[in-house]
């Protein structure tokens, strides 16, 4: 053949060793008792020479216990709220332009706005001048009235934003519980899928339900020195002023940042930082809470991202903010928020800004707040998490904007602006969620299934191995070697891509072993046929493999097609099955076409070779 046999045997040995190497983290992962697997104990137990500790096999929710939720976002209601606010805005706007009208309200199940007035033309012109980018005026309105409808694309955008916003609120809440490895995904049809492995409290999980996001504005208390005693109570974060070193020490640490004060000048402000929210919560509870006067101050917790020197993503950590206890304003007073472009500064052309609009009542409160605290920082707190804390640069009343820090990466700035706009909107436009699917697997069921599944898989494997040796003798033994390698390879690939093993996944694993054998049966039967036709052993092996090559490919591809379709369709356990099936089929093609062939050819490399097949 093209390559000497030792090259190919070398390749096989290399694949076997690499597979074993790749399985090292999984080995240590499953050696630990289930409740320690996702913690520090695991990170410590993986030896230094092993591959990345994150590359281990995961157990699906059905095997690990936990909660799977799918939540539907009530986009219709979110759209209705948006339309209702737009109607109020239009009324305000017409009033401010002195255009006479009698009424502006929503109609058509809350999707359109009707405006009545003595003269319609000036109303149409005024409204469309201001809102042409999102609305148009269709015909069919009754006499003496004008209809306004939103463009389809704008409605779709409202719906999309509502889902995005609900997802953000859910993320914030899950974050607070300190669940290890939660998985939150947006799916089609305004659905959000949440997986909380190992989480045992369905009642608490339902906290996600219904409650709309709470948005608050608070002023940071940067002049206060109340947190300074913490410098003695906790370790200092390692690293220079220019940047901290990551990961931060376990349990959290303190550090300082330089804050400009309204009086001019600046002040080093102490804050706490930690790698996880749970750690920081504990640190705040233990160290900061005792020194605080709860009537004066509160600690807010936010997330910060650190960018490397090249602007790439480097790390994420949680940090505290010292806030005044009083909630100055709530999200109830925000009418809307969006992302705009700031062209006022010639040096920062096209810089994104977050624009927001207050309700008439809120405008007064906001004006007073910003006048009193000019130059201070205002924290926007969504569901107990500080999302952003920009300086107040000017007086804000009904229309405000938040300018983002200067940066070179526009794309990133726009994403950030969009994020903040979502936060503001979350307070303004409730996007209620309802649970559409909930699956809770108790903690005792999972381990039992793992045990039974493993035993069942081993029995299947043994049955197949025994059959091959009994029926095909030496060739069967070669197929068995390939089969074991096949199993290793599947597990190794699955740990490498960090995929999830589910109960149907175990069945899929067993099934792919069966299919791998299937390929070996095809080969061996063909070799027998060639031998019967009177060929030498060497010829028979070569002919057998050559002839059967496409048959094996065809057989695998058809099942792969089914697997890929299934992966598109299924979620959770069924998806786990599809992934296992796909990985298994690819591995099976490799082992049956390359591995067994190399071994067979090695043993039959002389013309006088014997073969029991």
């Amino acid at each position, binding site marked *: 053949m093209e390559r000497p046999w030792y090259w190919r045997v070398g390749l096989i040995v290399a694949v076997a060793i690499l597979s074993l190497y790749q399985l090292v983290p999984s080995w240590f992962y499953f050696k630990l008792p289930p409740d320690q697997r996702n913690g520090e104990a695991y990170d410590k137990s993986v030896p230094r020479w092993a591959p990345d500790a994150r590359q281990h096999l995961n157990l699906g929710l059905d095997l690990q216990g936990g909660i799977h939720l799918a939540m*539907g976002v009530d986009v219709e209601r979110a759209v209705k709220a948006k339309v209702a606010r737009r109607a109020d805005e239009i009324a305000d706007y017409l009033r401010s332009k002195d255009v006479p009208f009698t009424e502006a309200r929503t109609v058509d199940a809350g999707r359109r706005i009707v405006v009545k007035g003595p003269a319609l033309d000036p109303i149409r012109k005024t409204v469309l001048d201001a809102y042409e980018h999102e609305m148009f005026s269709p015909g069919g309105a009754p006499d003496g009235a004008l209809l306004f409808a939103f463009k389809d694309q704008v409605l779709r955008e409202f719906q999309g934003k509502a889902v995005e916003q609900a997802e953000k609120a859910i993320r914030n809440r899950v974050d607070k519980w300190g669940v290890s490895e939660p998985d939150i995904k947006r799916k089609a049809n305004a659905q959000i899928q949440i997986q909380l492995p190992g989480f045992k409290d369905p009642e608490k999980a339902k906290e996600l339900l219904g409650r709309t996001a709470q948005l608050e504005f608070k002023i940071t208390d940067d002049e206060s020195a109340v947190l300074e005693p913490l410098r003695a109570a906790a370790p200092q974060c390692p690293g220079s002023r220019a940047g901290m070193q990551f990961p931060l020490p376990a349990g959290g640490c303190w550090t300082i940042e330089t804050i400009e004060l309204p009086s001019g000048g600046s002040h080093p402000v102490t804050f706490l930082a930690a790698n996880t929210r749970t750690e920081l919560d504990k640190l705040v509870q233990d160290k900061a809470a005792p020194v605080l006067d709860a009537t004066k101050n509160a600690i807010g917790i936010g997330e910060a991202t650190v960018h490397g020197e090249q602007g790439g993503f480097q790390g994420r950590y949680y940090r505290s903010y010292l806030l005044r206890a009083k909630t100055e304003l709530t999200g109830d007073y*925000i009418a809307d928020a969006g992302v705009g472009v700031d062209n006022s500064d010639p040096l920062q052309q096209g810089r994104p800004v977050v624009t927001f609009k207050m309700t008439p009542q809120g405008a007064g409160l906001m004006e007073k707040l910003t006048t009193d605290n000019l130059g201070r920082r205002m924290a926007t707190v969504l569901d107990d998490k500080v999302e952003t804390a920009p300086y107040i640069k000017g007086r804000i009343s009904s229309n405000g904007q938040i300018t983002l820090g200067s940066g070179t990466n526009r794309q990133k700035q726009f994403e950030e602006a969009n994020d903040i706009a979502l936060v503001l909107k979350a307070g303004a436009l409730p996007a209620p969620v309802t649970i559409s699917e909930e699956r809770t697997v108790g903690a005792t069921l999972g381990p039992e299934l793992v045990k039974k599944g493993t035993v069942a898989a081993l029995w299947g494997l043994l049955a197949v191995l025994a059959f091959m040796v009994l029926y095909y003798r030496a060739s069967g033994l070669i197929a068995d070697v390939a089969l074991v390698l096949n199993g290793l390879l599947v597990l190794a690939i699955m740990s490498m891509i960090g995929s999830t093993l589910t*109960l149907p996944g175990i*069945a899929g694993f067993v*099934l792919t072993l069966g299919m791998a054998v299937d390929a070996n049966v*095809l080969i061996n039967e063909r070799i027998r046929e060639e031998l019967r036709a009177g060929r030498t052993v060497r010829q028979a092996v070569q002919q057998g493999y050559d002839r059967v090559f496409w048959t094996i490919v*065809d057989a695998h591809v058809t099942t792969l097609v089914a697997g890929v379709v*299934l992966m598109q369709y299924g979620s*959770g356990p069924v998806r786990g099955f599809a992934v296992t099936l796909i990985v298994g089929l690819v591995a099976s093609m490799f082992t049956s076409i390359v591995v067994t062939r190399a071994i067979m050819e090695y043993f039959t490399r002389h013309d006088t070779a014997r073969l029991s097949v």
Partner: protein
Amino acid sequence: MQFKTFDIIPHGTKIDFVGKRHIAVVLSILVNLAVIAWSLPLVHGLNFGVDFAGGTEMEVRFGKSVDAGTIRKAVEELGFKDASVQTYGPEAEHSYLVRVGRIALMSPEDVKRVEEAVRARFPVENMSFNAESGDKIDFQFKTPPTTEALRGVVEGAGVKVRDVREEAGLTAGTKSFAVITQGIQDKIERDLAARFADAKPEVRRVEYVGPAVGRELRNQGFKAILYAMALIVVYVGLRFDFKFSPGVIIALVHDAVVTLGFFAFSGREFNLTSIAVILTVVGYSVNDTVVVYDRIREDQAKYKGRSLGEIVNLAINEVFGRTLLTSFATALSLVGLLVYGVGTIFDFAFAMLVGIISGTYSTWFIAAPMTIWLEERAARKKAGAAPAAAQAAAARASK
């Protein structure tokens, strides 16, 4: 030449598959029609699991044997008329699947009673309840009451309250109240714990799927099977010949229906995993067909001049051992799952086994002979003017 074989399956068989195709086709049509008829809701219907039917499903394990009928009666007495209780997994585990078709515990009458009680006390502006999203009633008031007062009134109407939450309303500045009442899981769990105290029931798993989601999953599932079939047929068509396609389609549909038959006739739950099985059967069963078709093509080139019927029979017999053994080997891997299989994977393994057997059968008796039938039809069309020739061809073909 040194080789010895350990043949259980003799080579060089001369079984006349083609000749028996008429009996086989009739048999298959009968079986398929029976499955389809039985699966129709009007006749009997599939036992859709919670994934597809919507509702609440609980896996409950008891410390000792409890009669499924007694459990069903207990659940029915709680007001769930459509309750279904099945044993789950091996007998020795005393595990049961309890399924009810609802998601919300509150019946329309309960909601009405609550509404009347609340309206009598507070100025309700708006009220909404959605039976598809669980035990939660939303209220908006002209003047908001305290959450405690609201809770008191709802409990006074005879509905247990878990939580009352104040939320931001639809428009700025307004408030909305969410009254969350006792759920199905809680109710059933408490009741079973009280009734079967000595058997220590333990709820091990709860699944709850909204009916709308269920319908969607069901439709998507059947669509996924159709897509997979279409893609496979296209692949086989491209790799071989589109004249093989009808045979492949018929065989695929046949195997999918027979596998469905396992769920239909056994009454086992038809759920997401069942769709996974059918898809896998569809992908796998075509393997055998492909092997035989491959050989038909090879033999057609080798033995020019023989009739298609002879070639098909020869090809099936030549690869008879292979077809049988590959199916056997794959089935063998399922042994462990069948012996130790718990719940879902036992059904998985069994249905897969049915699919594998059906796939082998359909290769021999449906897919391969199908090519002859198509050829005959084509020949008859072409030779419409010379019926004698066509008859001769048909006679040769069915030999």
